[in-house]
């Protein structure tokens, strides 16, 4: 909470996050590619491959299709970083979800900022992805409030029972959201990391060089943020939560390699039926048993 910690402590935490999260995120993506390769019976790139990719992109020629692209890729990166900082400073989770929403919208608008057919398709699909996962994340925030009586993340750390016990349906729903946000099959619909040619590169088609590097950087922050949100389900002790998050991450890799890409319509339908159902049942149960705090 704002008053509890010393300002200096918070400042150091923020700097550590700003520097450490991309390193962790890049490594996670490297591990992702390595394990995926092994699952497919091949060797795969070295674990620090994402960093090679990042620096190579930084060294590319500065080209673009429209000036508007720059605004939105910076918007995506900055608001992703801000959301992560909100998580690390244990602030308001509902506001965090909205800031994450801004990041998502920025990416979509980046896809829309050129008159390119592939970017257009990618942007519209990315919007559908947002439509699929946003209700679950908002319900997740409300579920936390229902359980703790506050939207503050710091309050989660003060509870003695982990959230996983009371919010396990929401946990399942959030796992579903993780698949969408990590752009793993069956939901790698708008753009994805490998050579999926259906809509070329979707949202990121017209981005190149340094700006594409920024996109990767934002993705590294994002994976740390997502795993951080999952680890909130077991906040005391935190290492258990982080372990659960990493297991979820590995589970996503498994699902990615088993599943084929599905349609956007199927994704939205599934989310708005099962995802919402899980969230609503969870919250209704807590409301009826605990009342209003």
């Amino acid at each position, binding site marked *: 909470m704002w008053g509890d910690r010393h300002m200096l402590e918070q400042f150091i935490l923020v700097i550590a996050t700003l520097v450490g999260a991309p390193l962790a995120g890049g490594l996670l993506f490297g591990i992702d*590619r390595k394990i995926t*390769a092994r699952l497919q019976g091949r060797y*795969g790139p070295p674990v620090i*491959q994402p960093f090679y990719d990042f620096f190579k992109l930084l060294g590319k020629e500065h080209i673009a299709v429209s000036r508007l692209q720059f605004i939105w890729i910076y918007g995506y990166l900055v608001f992703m970083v801000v959301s992560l900082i909100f998580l690390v400073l244990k602030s308001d989770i509902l506001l965090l979800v909205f800031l994450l929403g801004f990041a998502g919208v920025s990416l979509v608008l980046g896809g829309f900022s050129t008159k390119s057919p592939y970017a257009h398709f990618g942007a519209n699909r990315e919007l559908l992805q947002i439509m699929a996962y946003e209700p679950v994340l908002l319900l997740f925030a409300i579920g936390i409030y229902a359980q703790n009586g506050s939207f503050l993340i710091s309050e989660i750390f003060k509870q003695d029972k982990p959230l996983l016990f009371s919010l396990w349906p929401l946990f399942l729903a959030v796992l579903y959201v993780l698949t969408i946000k990590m752009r793993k099959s069956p939901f790698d619909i708008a753009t994805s990391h490998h050579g999926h040619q259906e809509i070329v590169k979707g949202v990121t088609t017209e981005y190149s060089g340094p700006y*594409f590097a920024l996109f990767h950087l934002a993705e590294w922050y994002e994976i740390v943020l997502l795993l951080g949100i999952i680890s909130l389900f077991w906040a005391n002790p935190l290492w258990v939560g982080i372990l659960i998050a990493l297991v979820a991450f590995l589970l996503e890799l498994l699902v990615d390699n088993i599943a084929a890409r599905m349609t956007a319509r199927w994704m939205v339908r599934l989310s708005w039926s099962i995802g919402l159902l899980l969230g609503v049942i969870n919250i209704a149960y807590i409301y009826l048993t605990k009342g209003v705090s």
Partner: protein
Amino acid sequence: MGLMQTSRVKSPWILHFDNSSCNGCDIEVLACLTPLYDVERFGMVNMGNPKHADILLITGPVNRRTARVLKNLYNQVPDPKVVVAVGTCASTAGVFHNCYNVLGGVDKIIPVDVYVPGCSVRPEAIIDGVVMALQKLASL
């Protein structure tokens, strides 16, 4: 080698384009990406997008129509970039060099850095050629 140079060598992203080949070389290029040869362990990923690519793998001889397309794609690839002409047809048009619609090898339209002859090229030769191209990329 500096950080930038190392990264360029370690992370070559490919754009594969087929001019008008019989697809023999294309199949061999694809074979490189399969687990048997697994070029991803060198960081190579087949990005279908010129704006994301470093290495162009071109197959097939150039004809009038694909000349325009090849030029467009080459212009959209940001520097530094290298071009690898895969197969005899891409290098010199091979058996098709006198046809009425064939303009010649790829180097009639865009500058080529590495020629990989063969009909169709073995995956090992393709990998060899790409490694040679990478060394050139590192010096750019």
